[in-house]
């Protein structure tokens, strides 16, 4: 099932980047930053990773492809969502070429690889009674309406 993202979610992800969490098959978590992020398709998000960033998560992803991420910086509170899916590290191909070029141009990142996350789950993490509410069963229209009732702010893209 495709996980829909609203335009506001896309804006926060792309403006702030994300904290990416992976775990070994035995349950030991690791975190790196996905400083350059782009929503590449319906339910897919690509992150440009420098060599040292990829080095931390590549051994883990090779054994367990599950990824969870949240929006970095103010997005941790203003975009109160957790995104989950499966990740694939790309080192060649059209997606890699496109994302790597954009990451270099916009943020000066020398991408060694691109983490492509295919989303499978979406949760609200707003503290309170809605914490943990699963949102990926909503249609795009329902999700958009749900979010508009709560928040409308969209950040400026960072340098």
């Amino acid at each position, binding site marked *: 099932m495709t996980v829909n993202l609203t335009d506001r979610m896309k804006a926060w992800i792309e403006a702030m980047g994300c*904290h990416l*969490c*992976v*775990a*070994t*098959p*035995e*349950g*030991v*978590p*690791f*975190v*790196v*930053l996905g*400083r350059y992020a782009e929503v590449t398709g319906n339910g897919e998000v690509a992150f440009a990773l*420098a060599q*040292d*960033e990829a*080095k*931390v998560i590549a051994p883990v992803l090779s054994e*367990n492809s*599950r*990824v*969870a*991420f*949240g929006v*970095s*910086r*103010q*997005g*941790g*509170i*203003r975009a*109160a969502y*957790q995104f*989950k899916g499966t990740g694939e590290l790309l080192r060649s191909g059209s997606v890699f070429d496109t994302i790597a070029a954009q990451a270099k141009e916009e943020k000066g*990142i020398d991408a060694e690889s691109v983490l492509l996350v295919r989303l499978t789950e979406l949760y609200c*993490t*707003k*503290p*309170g009674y809605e*914490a*943990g509410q699963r949102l990926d069963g909503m249609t795009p229209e329902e999700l958009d309406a749900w979010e508009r009732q*709560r*928040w409308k702010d969209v950040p400026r893209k960072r340098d």
Partner: protein
Amino acid sequence: MVKFTKEMKEALRVPGKGGSLIYLCTSSRDGNPNIAAMRFVATHMDDKILIADMFLLKTKANIKENPEVAVTICHPLDEGRWWVFKGKAVDMEYGFPRDFDWYGANATDILNEWGNWNKAEPPDEVPPDIVFPKAVQRGVVVVHVEEAYSIEPGHVGEKVLTG
């Protein structure tokens, strides 16, 4: 045993006191990762991170079956707070044996000091469209930190604390 730096202790406080919003990363025992932002954070001794157990769901379930966690700064990052702390966590809930010990942290001490966190450090800085209507605290997550690595661009993965 690790020892937090002064900068780390200053960062690992509630945002309203100059601290940080943090991400607490957990995993199920079979490796399903989870990441959730937390506002109520503090340090205890030189190697413990405390986080309020409020609204925890999957995080709580994960810690109950797997103590391995990672804590990292979500915001602000631009003040040099590029750290990921790794260690073992327990959720000291009300009703825990008062003499329960987690790597030197005593349940009575923790719950006496941090058991009513919302009153001690109310979330005055949290925007009205985000702040929760009523805080219900069930305990305190205590993270015994064993190492930390950097996520600063260009230095990712370098150890910044080792046991």
